């Protein structure tokens, strides 16, 4: 196991270098001159001299790889640069926002699991019945609804028609509810389908027949054996959903004004504040890679038969 973790961590190094390289490239594909963009973002009327000066200051006259090297060195020490807009450090902007996104992501994940695990199991056990068809239909619809549509539908019906919630979330506990629903519903829909398929496969196995023949109660089989065996698959399902959750949070946070990294990223895009966008992409990719690693490790820990690759 330790050897496996070590190998996995080693194989992450080229990926991490690739991630930083691509993130750095983002700045390069942006149309226009970076120094000019920085000055414009601050609302300064620019002269050619100022641009030259800022170029020198930002190291834009260095060769590409030197610039990347410097930036990479800074990233390693946790310095993600400074915002064009207000000269605040990018990490100090991302930090608190990241916490709020984490809260939102966790609450929607918990909601999705609370709904989908019982529903998925129920659907699998009573497969072919009315409720199975009903839940499958619901999850199919939920799966086809983009996050932005769900957000707007929720906003229209719950805030505007029923006045149940404030329209703008601004980080309060009450404001957490709607963004959680907006992210949680499509997530739950996907989970229900996957958990149903997983449980269905597991309860069709021979050991279930065997246990039943020996007189073990079916509820006991279901909760003691089947679920435990399906657990590692459910874990993988969660791991795989994180990427979509991150993308969805940008949309949902923007709509509900939840002050997380997604909203910060969209605001930075509007303001052409490239260092913040870079920091956002970098953080998201790092978290994503880390979660994938953790999922693999948990998978192995729960089910040691899984071949380590």
């Amino acid at each position: 196991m330790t050897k496996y973790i070590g190998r996995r961590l080693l194989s992450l190094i080229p990926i991490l270098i690739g991630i930083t390289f691509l993130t750095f490239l983002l700045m390069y594909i942006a149309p226009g001159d970076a120094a000019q963009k920085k000055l414009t973002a601050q609302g300064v009327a620019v002269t050619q001299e100022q641009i030259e000066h800022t170029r020198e200051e930002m190291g834009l006259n260095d060769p590409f790889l030197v610039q990347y090297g410097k930036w990479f060195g800074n990233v390693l020490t946790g310095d993600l640069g400074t915002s064009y807009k207000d000269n605040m450090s990018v990490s100090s902007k991302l930090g608190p926002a990241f916490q709020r996104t984490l809260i939102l992501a966790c609450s929607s994940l918990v909601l999705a699991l609370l709904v989908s695990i019982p529903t998925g199991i129920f659907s699998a056990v009573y497969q072919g019945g009315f409720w199975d068809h009903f839940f499958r239909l619901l999850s199919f619809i939920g799966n086809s609804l983009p996050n932005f549509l769900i957000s707007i539908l929720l906003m229209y019906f719950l805030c505007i028609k029923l006045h149940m919630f404030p329209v703008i979330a601004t980080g309060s506990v009450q404001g957490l509810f709607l963004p959680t629903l907006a992210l949680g519903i499509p997530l739950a829909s996907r989970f229900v389908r996957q958990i149903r398929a997983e449980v269905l496969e597991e309860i069709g196995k021979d050991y279930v027949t065997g246990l039943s023949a020996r007189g073990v109660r079916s509820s006991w089989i279901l909760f003691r054996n089947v679920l435990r065996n399906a657990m590692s698959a459910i874990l993988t399902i969660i791991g795989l959903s994180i990427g979509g959750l991150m993308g969805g949070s940008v949309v949902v946070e923007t709509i509900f004004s939840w002050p997380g990294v997604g909203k910060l990223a969209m605001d930075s895009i509007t303001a052409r504040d490239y260092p913040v966008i870079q920091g956002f992409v970098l953080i998201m990719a790092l978290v994503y890679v880390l979660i994938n690693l953790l999922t693999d490790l948990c998978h192995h820990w729960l089910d040691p038969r899984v071949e380590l690759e």
Partner: protein
Amino acid sequence: MNPFRKKTKQLTREQLRRRMLILLGLAGILCVFALVAPYLTPNDPNLPNAAYMNAAPCKEFPLGADRYGRCVLSRVMIGARTSIFSAVALVFLTFVAGSLLGMLSGWYGGVLDAVIMRVADIFLAFPQMVLAIAVAGVLGGSLLNAMIALGIAGWTIYARLARVHTMALKNEPFILAARMNGSSGLSILLRHILPNMIGPLLVNAVTQIGTTMIGIAGLSFLGLGVVPPNAEWGSMINEARAYVQLAPWSVFVPAVAVIITVMVFNYLGDAVRDYSDVSEAK
């Protein structure tokens, strides 16, 4: 006896085939509709009319008007072309590029393989939508930029699949025979390997159409894809959402269009996959 195993009706291969064909037909109808819709619009989709700002559905505007007094129905109709064809085109392009790269990677191996696969790994290390939002955000809003943003990571799935299939087929006797006949690598790839793996690759491509549609609509909704005044469902919803109280139709009509279209293509993806699973098992 297994207490959970129920005698449920399994769809036969023939039924699955019929379901797939029906959905293909539906998707085809949507595509044809998107093609001809611009000629059938009841009003000029881009013509503002101050007298009908936020007008409710009426004789002139069957599904109401938006805040500029433009016909919602007409705009949804011409938006169909952008929304459907950009998704289909993007899936097709990433499918072709990815399969080609994957085939080359699997066939030639060595350095080429290592480079292509490492690059794919790096793109896969980003959450796709996050990367797309950042790239489209940096490039600036336009349909082409949104497609680039979604496409730069989209090819990787096909590349990985094509590579695995190519490596599996590479040492089959019929490929060795073609090699001994003196066929060049490229001609073997295109004439013998491609036809033998196109099935699973195509199935994968079809399942991606719905997701891609959601992606493009999502980017447009964020203002990073199709920009107003061009009509696209995602950007229409974004434009109208501030006025949802006054003119709910200008949000709900494009919303229903998105939902129906995505559902048809998602269901088509499921049907094609189910059918191919059964066909392969046979």
